[in-house]
């Protein structure tokens, strides 16, 4: 049953990524160059929407809080994020989207990214012990910290519970709506990249 759900949910996720054009590296790099923020709007709105749904699911009592999974805060999150950003910015792909893009247009480059990713993950696996001894995962260790007290399992900053997720959720959705698709300050190089979506101009 779990395997069947994995196929359905994984398939849905791949479908949603492709439908949102998040699996198109060009969309990601245009977003990061602040030329076309439509994908940014989608990501921010999606996070807010999911947060809001989570609040309502808890409100009506259908949400099992043991499904929550919070990752820890430590120096590795910052350093790893900075390294991740260099790769993310240069190829416009991330672990989920390069897997999604390994079918369809541009699949060869996506497969090259997946292969590179496998080697990168492997090199990290064998160097983990060394990083651990350096204290990378124990410096700034704040544990599995959450903003709001949604579960006794995790420490939290504010004791307002799921209502906090509703507030950030609505806030994120509002920011997404207000965010301009084509900010004017990024226009200098737009003409170079042959834009296909000038519908909003």
């Amino acid at each position: 049953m779990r395997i069947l759900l994995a196929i359905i949910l994984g398939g849905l996720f791949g479908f949603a990524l492709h439908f949102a054009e998040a699996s198109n590296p060009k969309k990601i790099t245009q977003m990061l160059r602040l030329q076309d923020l439509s994908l940014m709007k989608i990501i921010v709105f999606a996070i807010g929407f999911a947060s809001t749904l989570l609040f309502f699911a808890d409100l009506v009592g259908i949400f099992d809080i043991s499904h929550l999974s919070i990752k820890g805060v430590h120096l590795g999150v910052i350093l790893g994020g900075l390294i991740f950003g260099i790769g993310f910015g240069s190829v416009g792909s991330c672990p989920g989207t390069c897997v999604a893009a390994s079918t369809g247009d541009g699949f060869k480059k996506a497969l090259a990214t997946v292969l590179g990713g496998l080697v990168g993950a492997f090199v990290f696996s064998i160097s983990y012990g060394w990083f651990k001894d350096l204290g990378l995962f124990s410096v700034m260790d704040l544990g599995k910290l959450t903003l709001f007290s949604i579960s006794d399992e995790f420490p939290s900053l504010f004791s307002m519970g799921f209502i906090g997720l509703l507030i950030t959720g609505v806030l994120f959705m509002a920011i997404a709506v207000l965010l301009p698709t084509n900010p004017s300050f990024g226009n200098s190089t737009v003409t170079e990249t042959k834009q296909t979506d000038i519908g909003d101009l």
Partner: protein
Amino acid sequence: MRQKWILQAMLLGAVFFLAVLIIKPIGVSTQFSVLSGIVHSTIDPNVITVDESIDSGYRSTNAYYDKSEGKLAKSIKHPINYDFVFVLAIPLGAYLAHLLRRKKTNTQNTHEEVYSEPIPELPKVKGNFWRTYAPSFLGGFIILFGARMADGCTSGHMMSGMMQGSVSGYIFAAAVFLTAIPTAIIVEKLSLRKVGK
């Protein structure tokens, strides 16, 4: 068509919500460690060994596979589990969306919807295999190395994390955009210079 992005966002958000409602939050990058670990333990069978005395039943000489009571070691030895199959199913759904989009563009011929060629910025150099694929490979290497160090990626940390109000998700997102935005701008400048524009 103007509000199509909201529809795209709602579908993406709904999938993240459904995943945590039914099973657990979406995450992808760990499975890169699992797949590379499968190859690793096939070449070197001694790296992961059976140990009934701990919860997962597996121990590893590698500190990463051995972490959290051999959790990863177990996934490597038993890859047919929820997380791994979930990632394998991603391309299937994406392909379905790809076929649907192609069908739509063929029949309706709405030029603004035509799916643009991915990464057209780099000039096409005929027959130069390395020049075409080495940057993507190297990029993938950096992305997954960073993601594993941070213990999550755009899906696990940023989307799933921020959705649950996880502080690490916010920190990861801030760190990622801090380097991703300048990198994307610099890479474009460099590639334009190379074309001689």
